[in-house]
């Protein structure tokens, strides 16, 4: 222990002696502070007064032992000498562009200040060693920007990581550094502000919103996408048949389900083959540009590369991947490969899995950096008003160039996207034509509407369902352009359009509005609708909550005993 202490002091003073610093000036200052004369100090240190005065005036370079004697005599810790000698440039350290990470702590006993210290230490990876303690002040380091209490039980801590700590163009590096403060602290990652210098190192979307619109020649209306159902049990040929029907009905895209990778009886080569045939035939027959998104999710990046090239050989234009399942590095590889082959990459899939780790808004930001061209999002029609505001933040993240901090929208920090292309949001979740007016109002026309459930659930056929969706959307866009308010008049517009479209009439009769607003279902009495379920008309998706006191306990019905004689009515 003592040896370590000596080495400590030695290192410190060695620095002082070798550095081009004003040692004499500092010693003079300390003498003044302590009220000592030169002769007094010289006596304490055991050196001659003339020698000390020469040191004070900077005329000699003192020996290491001499400086040690003086410092001891003055009663000053060597560390303090070191710190006072170093040039003070905190501004320089602060001006290095840094990634700001917002962390949230809930239900904690810590004060805001203690939480800040805890998370800072966790972000630094524990206490600094001796080399860290004597780090020059201008070396960029992790620092605490803010720590405050929000509401009653929530603390928000902002930690800044200098961009020099991160590797260029790596989401993995970004996430690993940003989440370093989560280890053992129970905090959650809320938002990350990526500095421009780092943003420019990411490739971003190769095609993006504008190129997808231009390439597929879809202008002036939202696009419609349909996931092919049933997910299991179709042969590749019948699967292609479903693709053709949906596209001919008026869908712009069809998509593989994210959970359909390669199964016996419908392996990926066969599926790509028939789906490509179907999309080409539908383009030819409908005279519109149609496309099928093939699911390339696979075990290894090499396998996914093979599938991308296979899809390219069939002249397909879009590939789909379950991002939460394959991970960030694989996603960046796939985005690069898709860009090389000119395919648009659709980041679909498991938002539940992703949402367990990252908030949707942050997930969308990272997907945009990683290079997805289409990103599936939740629906703004679900839940309450605060969810709608939050979803507005997600759409900002995908489509805007810059945005301000706005807590309601999930933006804890301001961010600008440094010229990364905008991304197409693919709004998901059980929409039927009744939802389109509010959806168009909430999201705007630059979106892809996933309405596979309504198309497949149409009583007539898949083609009729697709037709109904398309007619409803076009009628709404036309009415909006003519100056009608969709939230107010949406219902009438749809009913008017159903006069000339029997398919739409049938869809409006068989689906119901508002099925996205499901509430709490008490117990397991009713099958709870999931995000993808389209609820039929006349079925209450959220039955009224029955308080427990009213519920009659289950009573087993009396089984007729075999011994009892049958009642006869003859007498």
């Amino acid at each position, binding site marked *: 222990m003592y040896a370590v202490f000596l080495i400590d002091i030695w290192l410190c003073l060695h620095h002082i002696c070798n550095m081009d610093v004003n040692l004499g000036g500092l010693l003079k200052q300390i003498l003044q502070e302590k009220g000592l004369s030169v002769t007094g100090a010289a006596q304490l240190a055991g050196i001659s007064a003339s020698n000390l005065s020469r040191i004070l005036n900077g005329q000699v370079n003192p020996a290491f032992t001499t400086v040690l004697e003086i410092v001891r005599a003055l009663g000053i810790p060597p560390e303090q000498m070191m710190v006072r000698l170093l040039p003070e440039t905190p501004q320089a350290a602060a001006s290095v562009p840094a990634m700001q990470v917002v962390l949230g702590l809930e239900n904690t006993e810590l004060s805001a200040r203690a939480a800040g210290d805890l998370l800072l230490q966790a972000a630094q990876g524990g206490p600094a060693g001796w080399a860290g303690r004597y780090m020059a002040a201008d070396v960029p380091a992790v620092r605490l920007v803010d720590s405050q209490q929000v509401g009653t039980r929530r603390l928000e801590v902002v930690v800044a990581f200098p961009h020099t700590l991160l590797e260029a163009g790596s989401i993995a590096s970004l996430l690993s550094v940003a989440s370093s403060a989560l280890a053992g602290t129970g905090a959650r990652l809320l938002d990350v502000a990526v500095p421009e210098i780092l943003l420019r190192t990411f490739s971003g979307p190769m095609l993006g919103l504008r190129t997808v619109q231009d390439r597929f020649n879809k202008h002036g209306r939202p696009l419609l996408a349909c996931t092919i159902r049933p997910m299991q049990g179709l042969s590749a040929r019948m699967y292609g048949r479903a693709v053709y029907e949906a596209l001919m009905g008026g869908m712009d895209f069809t998509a593989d389900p994210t959970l359909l990778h390669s199964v016996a009886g419908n392996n990926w080569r066969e599926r790509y083959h028939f789906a490509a045939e179907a999309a080409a035939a539908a383009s030819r027959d409908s*005279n519109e540009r149609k496309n099928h998104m093939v699911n390339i999710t696979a075990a290894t990046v090499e396998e996914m590369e093979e599938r991308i090239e296979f899809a390219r050989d069939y002249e397909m234009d879009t590939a789909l991947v379950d991002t939460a399942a394959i991970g960030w590095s694989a996603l960046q590889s796939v985005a690069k490969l898709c860009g090389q082959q000119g395919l648009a990459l659709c980041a679909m899939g498991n938002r539940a899995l992703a949402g367990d780790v990252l908030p949707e808004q942050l997930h969308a930001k990272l997907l945009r950096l990683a290079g997805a061209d289409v990103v599936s999002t939740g629906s703004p029609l679900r839940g309450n008003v605060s969810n709608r505001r939050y979803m507005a933040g997600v759409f900002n993240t995908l489509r805007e160039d810059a945005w301000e901090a706005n807590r309601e929208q999930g933006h804890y920090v301001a961010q600008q996207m440094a010229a990364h292309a905008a991304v197409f949001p693919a709004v998901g979740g059980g929409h039927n034509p009744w939802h389109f007016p509010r959806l168009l109002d909430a999201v705007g026309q630059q979106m892809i509407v996933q309405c596979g459930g309504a198309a497949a659930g149409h009583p007539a056929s898949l083609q009729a369902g697709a037709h109904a969706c398309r007619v409803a959307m076009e009628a709404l866009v036309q009415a909006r352009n003519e100056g009608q308010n969709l939230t107010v008049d949406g219902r009438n517009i749809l009913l008017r359009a159903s006069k000339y479209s029997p398919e739409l009439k049938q869809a409006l009769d068989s689906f119901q509005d508002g099925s996205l607003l499901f509430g709490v279902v008490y117990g397991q009495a009713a099958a709870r609708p999931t995000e993808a379920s389209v609820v039929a008309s006349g079925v209450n998706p959220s039955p009224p909550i029955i308080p427990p006191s009213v519920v009659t306990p289950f009573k087993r019905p009396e089984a007729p005993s075999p011994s009892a004689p049958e009642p006869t009515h003859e007498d």
Partner: protein
Amino acid sequence: MRFETFSFLPPLSPTQIEAQAAYLLKQGLIAAIEHAENPSHADIYWRQWPIVPAKINSATNQPEPLSASHLLNQLEACARRHPYAFIRLCGYCPKSRLVQMCFVARTPQEGQ
């Protein structure tokens, strides 16, 4: 033949087309009229019909801003010159550099 936006609606009447043109101008989009005979899904580029200004303001020597009725007249002129063509009205947004709207306003079957 169905062709992209508004193709699943009944044919637009001149009043309805004028309403769309008015929306286009109100949004600050740049109007373009394009026509093609036998268009296919692979044809991105159609031939452009030059929109001549309605009149020149004699005081400023600058063309007057476009009006919806003038755009409708130009569609009519294009249809008269190319009776067998599909004619579409496009609105290009100079800010977002996106074609914000584009729909077929005239088809060959009409007006015969």
